[in-house]
């Protein structure tokens, strides 16, 4: 039996367990099969759109999101340090929109909070900041967002109170190479940051 012949069957999940294993071993050594499989996988995936079936019940979405929230297994690498603030530039999206995401894990004694924040930026420099997992600001305090253009002073970009998920549109525009940061300030906000940022995009 020629293993090359199995590409279509593999893409359709039509191999039995041991055949699939043999094919996967072969795949490691055969560039042609890898290329062909990538193509046929896309086509097999397209067949999924051809199925006629009822809509899923609404509870399925809830169940998936709740289980994912409880799961958290995909944040493990971030929990290795006590305070980790790590930014990442995520793949530029379609219409030249850029998203900068940052995830912060705050560990205090036995309690672990995972905070994720994301800045979505359109080509004109308009930006929104989405933060989830941040506890509500303490009494008399607020979270304040800042846009810090390279080499310039931070500009106040909006206040929010935290708790659950928050999305705010940042005031003004975010120029290239600017940093977006969040500090805790006195209620009403400050004109310049007075505390160390708890969140910041990479410089």
């Amino acid at each position, binding site marked *: 039996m020629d293993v090359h012949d199995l590409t279509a069957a593999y893409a359709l*999940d*039509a191999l039995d367990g041991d055949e699939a294993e043999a094919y996967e071993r072969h795949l490691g050594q055969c560039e042609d099969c890898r290329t062909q499989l990538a193509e046929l996988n*896309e086509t097999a995936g397209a067949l*999924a*759109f051809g199925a*006629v079936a*009822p809509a899923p019940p609404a509870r*399925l979405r809830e169940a998936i999101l709740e289980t994912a929230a409880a799961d958290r297994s995909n944040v493990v690498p971030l929990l290795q340090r006590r305070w980790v603030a790590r930014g*990442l530039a*995520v793949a530029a999206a379609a219409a030249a929109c850029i998203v900068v995401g940052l995830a912060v894990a705050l560990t205090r004694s036995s309690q672990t909070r995972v905070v994720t924040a994301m800045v979505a930026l359109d080509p004109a420099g308009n930006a929104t900041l989405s933060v989830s997992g941040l506890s509500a600001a303490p009494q008399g305090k607020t979270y304040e967002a800042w846009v810090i253009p390279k080499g310039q002073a931070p500009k106040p970009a909006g206040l929010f109170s935290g708790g659950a998920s928050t999305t705010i549109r940042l005031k003004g525009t975010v120029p290239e190479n600017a940093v977006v940061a969040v500090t805790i300030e006195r209620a009403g906000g400050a004109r310049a940051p007075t505390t160390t940022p708890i969140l910041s995009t990479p410089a």
Partner: protein
Amino acid sequence: MNRQLAHLSDEALVALAARSEQSALAELYDRYGRTAYGLAFRILRDGTLAEDAVQEAFLTVWRTASRFVPERGKASTWILTLVHRRAVDVVRREQRRRAESLDRAPEPAVEGVDEDAWLRLQRERVQEALRNLPDAQREALELAYYGGFSQSELAERLGQPLGTIKSRMFTGLSRMRELLGEPGGEMSWTSTT
């Protein structure tokens, strides 16, 4: 719904999911959940089993998003492959719906009202392409992909040598690729915002 993610590509959403951004997982579900459930339901012919398969697949997306490599294929393909594999594993274990799907049980009615126009268009395109295949190739693809039959099971059921089944699947899938690759054939999510 966290619609500010609506302008992001599927691949950017997977990258965010890898960083525990739940709204990214929610957005992926909103894009592909219906197709995923439709596929699982078609294979399993059972709502509860289909829900389980879709949930397992999306949790795998959540847990392994950091290992997704965009160069190897589209995120939507990855997600739907996970759903398909899961559903096929279950159906082979259960052996329950087989006679039914062979008899081409009546298709469940689709509630067209809330169905996305884009999804309807994609379904029509795929069905049209399938209709354009020679009967033997279409049969092999449908029984394998929607029925969850392995190539050896197909050979036995259809009374054909294994080589014939393999070649029908290969030729059929390659022909589908050509048919779907024609203009307007992009199957990936396209933002309308």
